[in-house]
C-alpha cells in the first residue's frame, strides 16, 4: 500500500514543480514594466531645450522608458524648479535627470531625492551634491576657454571685451564665464570691461547689450554665454550697426544666429550637443535606475562653428533643427 503512495507522492511533486516553473515564467513578464524617468530642465521653451527633449525622447523610445518632462517657465525660477524636484520625489520615479538652475540652491533637494532612493543624473549643468550619479553635458569651463580663444584671435591680443551671461549661480554659466576670464587673463592687453546677466531673457539681453555698447563705444568684442543671451546680443549688435567693427562670439545655435553667422555678423558659435545630452542622460539614468554602474562624467563635447564649417554635413545636423 505504501509503495503506490510513494508513486502518487512523486507525481504530485512533479506537478508542483511544473506549476512552479510556469509561475516563475509568469513573473518574468513583470520585467516588461516601463521604468519612469523624470527629466527636469531649466526652461520649458527654446531650441536648446527642445533639442534636449528630442534626444531624450529618442532614447526613451529606444529603451522603452516612460519619461516625464518638466521645467519652470524661465531659468531664474529656482524655487519653481525646487518644487518640481519635490513633486518628482513624491511620485517616486526610477530616476531623475536634473539640469540645475542654481548650483547651490538645488543641492539640498538633490540629496533628498537620493535619500528617497531615486538616483539623480545631472545634465547640462552640475549641482552641488555628491549624491549625483553622473554628469552628462559639455565641459563648460573648456567651452568658455574656447570662446575666449576664438574671440581674442579675432580681436587681437589687446581688446576690450564685454560678457553677456545668463544666470549667476547656474553652474554652467559660472563655469563658462570662469573659463573665458581665465583664458583672457593670459593676455595683459585684453580687458573684460563689463559682465551682465540677462537671466535667459532675450529682451533683457537686448537692452543690456545696447547699454553696454553705449557705455563702451570702443568695445572690440562681446561674448554671449547662452542661446537667449545670444539672440538678444545678436539683435542689438545687428540693429545698432556695431556689427561692422565688433567681434561677436555666441553660445548655442538658435536659427536667428545661423542667419547672422552666414551674414558675418556673428563670427563664431560655441555649440554643445543638445541632442546627445538628452539622449545620453536618459540612457545613463536608466542604467542608474537598474543599479548598474555609470561613468561619473560624460563629456558630450562642444564645437566652435563659423561660416567656414557651418555647412559641413556633420555640422548641418547639429545646427539645424531636423524636419519636425
Amino acid at each position, binding site marked *: 500500500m505504501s509503495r503506490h503512495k510513494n*508513486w*502518487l507522492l512523486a507525481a504530485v511533486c512533479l506537478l508542483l514543480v511544473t506549476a512552479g516553473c510556469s509561475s516563475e515564467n509568469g513573473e518574468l513578464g513583470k520585467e516588461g514594466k516601463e521604468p519612469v524617468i523624470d527629466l527636469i530642465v531649466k526652461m520649458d521653451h527654446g531650441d536648446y531645450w527642445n533639442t534636449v527633449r528630442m534626444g531624450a525622447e529618442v532614447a526613451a523610445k529606444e529603451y522603452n522608458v516612460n519619461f516625464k518632462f518638466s521645467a519652470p517657465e524661465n531659468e531664474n525660477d529656482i524655487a519653481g524648479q525646487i518644487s518640481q524636484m519635490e513633486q518628482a520625489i513624491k511620485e517616486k520615479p526610477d530616476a531623475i535627470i536634473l539640469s540645475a538652475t542654481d548650483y547651490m540652491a538645488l543641492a539640498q533637494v538633490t540629496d533628498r531625492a537620493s535619500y528617497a532612493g531615486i538616483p539623480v543624473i545631472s545634465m547640462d549643468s552640475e549641482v552641488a551634491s555628491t549624491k549625483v550619479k553622473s554628469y552628462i553635458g559639455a565641459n563648460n569651463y573648456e567651452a568658455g576657454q574656447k570662446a575666449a580663444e576664438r574671440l581674442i584671435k579675432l580681436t587681437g591680443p589687446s581688446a576690450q571685451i564685454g560678457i553677456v551671461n545668463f544666470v549667476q549661480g547656474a553652474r554652467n554659466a559660472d563655469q563658462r564665464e570662469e573659463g573665458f576670464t581665465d583664458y583672457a587673463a593670459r593676455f595683459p592687453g585684453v580687458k573684460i570691461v563689463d559682465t551682465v546677466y540677462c537671466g535667459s531673457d532675450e529682451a533683457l539681453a537686448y537692452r543690456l547689450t545696447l547699454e553696454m555698447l553705449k557705455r563702451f563705444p570702443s568695445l572690440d568684442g562681446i561674448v554671449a554665454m547662452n542661446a537667449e543671451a545670444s539672440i538678444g546680443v545678436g539683435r542689438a549688435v545687428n540693429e545698432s550697426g556695431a556689427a561692422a567693427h565688433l567681434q561677436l562670439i555666441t553660445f548655442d545655435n538658435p536659427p536667428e544666429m545661423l542667419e547672422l553667422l552666414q551674414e558675418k555678423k556673428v563670427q563664431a558659435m560655441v555649440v554643445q550637443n543638445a541632442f546627445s545630452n538628452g539622449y545620453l542622460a536618459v540612457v545613463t539614468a536608466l542604467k542608474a535606475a537598474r543599479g548598474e554602474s555609470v561613468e561619473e562624467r560624460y563629456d558630450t563635447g562642444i564645437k566652435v562653428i563659423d561660416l567656414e564649417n557651418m555647412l559641413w554635413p556633420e555640422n548641418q545636423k547639429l545646427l539645424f533643427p531636423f524636419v519636425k
Partner: protein
Amino acid sequence: MRDGLKWLLTLPRRLHVKQIQVIVTLTIMFVTVFSVLIASLMLYNKFSSSAEENTYLNIGQIIEQVSSNLELYVGGIQDIFEILEKKIDESGLLGDEQTQNQLSTILETRADLVSAALFKPDGSLVLNVPAVALRPNTKLQEQSWFVSAQKNPGTLQFSPPHIQNLFKWQYRWVVSLSKQIVYNDHGQKKPGVLVLDVNFRTIDELSHRISLGKKGYIYIIDPQGNIVYHPQQQLIYAGLKYENLEPVLNYAYGSYEDESTGEKRIITIKTVNPTGWRVVGVSYADEIMTTKKDLNTFIFRFLIIAIALVLLISVVVSYKIAQPIRKLERSVKRIESGDFRALVPVSGPYEVEQLFKRFNLMLRRIRELMDQIIHEQEAKRKSELDALQAQINPHFLYNTLNAMTRLAEMGRSDEVVTTITSLSKFFRISLSQGNNIIPLRDELEHVRHYLVIQKIRFKNKFEFEIEASEEALGCSCLKLILQPLAENAVYHGIEVLAETGHIRISAQVAGDQLIITLQDNGIGMTEEVLKGILSGEKRVKGSGSGVGVHNVHERIRLYYGPDYGLSYESELEEGTAVTITLPAVKLEETMEG
C-alpha cells in the same frame, strides 16, 4: 557526491522495478515522452524554420515596398524637373513675369517642392522660384549638387539631404535635383545649372513609418555612402551610434548578417533607381528569434505538463492493474499460512476477475478435497481398527479352547460348561449383527463373559464386579471398548500380582456424558508407561490381543470426536483406574439414526 550516485544507482532496486506497476508506469511514460519529444522536435524545426523564412520574406517585402515607393516618388519629382527644364527651354525670355508665374504654378502644385533656381556656371543667379533674395556667403560653387551637375552634364543628379542656405527665408532640409542644361538667354544658348530643392520631409515620412520588429529600422544611403535618411542620424553624427556602411556599399541587393555593433543584425539591401540610393533594412536577430524562443518555452512547458499528466495517468492505470493482482498475492499468502477460508473478493478488470473466480473455485475444490481426504482417512482408520478388533477372536478362542481342554481332561465339567456358555455369549455379542454401536448393557455383558472365561483360565486369580445404573445401561456404546481394557488389567495389572486381583467396572450417566470406569488393584504403571499408553507410542510387549489401549482411545475419538476417550490414573502397587468418557446417547436414537 558518492552517496548521491549510490542513491541513484540503487533507486531502481529500491523502487522494485520489476513490479507490474513500475513496469507499466515506466513503459507508458517512456513511450509517451519519447513520441511527444519526437513530435515536438519535428514541429519545432518546421515551425521555427518557416517562421525564420517568413521573417526574411517579410523584411524583403518591406524593403521592396519602401524602395518602390521611393522610386515612384523620385520618378514624380523627375517628371516635374523635366517639365521645369522644358518650360525654361521653351521660354525665350527668362525673368519675365509669364515664365516666373508658370514656374511658380508648377512648384505650387506640390507642397514638398521648396524652390527651383537656375545658375550660371560662375554661380550668378539667372532666376529663382519663389523669387526671394539670395543669402550672402552661400558658397554655391562648393555645394555638391552644383559640382556634380557640372561634372556630369546632361544627367540628373541627386544630392544627399542638406540644408538649403541659398535664399533668405528659412534653413530647410532638402534634397537637391540638379542638372546642367542649356537655356535660352535672349536668343543665345547658354549653359546653366538647374536645381530643384525637394523638402526632405516626404522621404523622411516614407521611411519613418517603417519598422522592422520592435528595434529594427531602415535607413537610406546614397552611392557615396552619405546618409540620406537614418532614424538616428543625430546619434550617428554625434558618434553615439555607428552604422557599418562599408559592406552595404558593396551590395546592391540582398541580405547578410552583421555583427559590427556587437549584436547580430540582419541587413537587407535594395537599390533605388535612378538615384542609386540604397534602402537598408536593419532587423535584430534576437527579435526574429523571439518566435523561436516563444516556441521553445511553449514546447518546454507543453513537455513538462505532458510528462506530468502521463506520469499521473500511468501511475493511476498501473495502480488499477496491479492492485487486484496484489490483492490476489495477499490472499495466496494467507492460504500459504493455512487459512483456506480466505476467498478473494472478485473485482477488477475482466481478466483479473476471471482469474479470481477460477482461483476461488480452485480454493473451494481444494477445501472439498481436503475434507474428503480427512473423511477417507478416518474411514480407513476405522476399518483398520475394526480389522484389528477382528483379530481378537481367533487368539482368544485358541486360548479359551486350550483352557477348556485342560478343564475337560481334569473332568471339571461344570467349569467347562460355564466357559462354553460364556464363550458363546461372548461371540454372540462380538458379532452383534455387525453393528459397531451396541447397548452398554451388551458391552458390559460382553466384558463380563470375557472376565468369566479369564477367571476360569487364571484359576480364580482375580475377582470382578460390574455395576451400572439403569440409565447408563440404556445408553449406547461403541462395541468392544471394554474388553481390551479388561484384558490389559488382567494381563498387566493382575497376572503378576501375588494376592487375589480385583477388577471393578462401573458405569453411570453424568450430565450428557456416559462415564465408564474400570479399576483394578494391579501393579499399576510407571509414569512413563502411563504417558505412552494413550498415544500408542509404547506398545506393551507380550500382551494378549495386541489391540492396544491406544486403539480404543483412537476409535472413541474417531466416532465421537476429540472431547471423548480414555483417561488413566495409576499408582504403582496400588492399581490402575481407566475412565471412558462417551456421550450419553439413548440407544433408541442411535438405532434410528
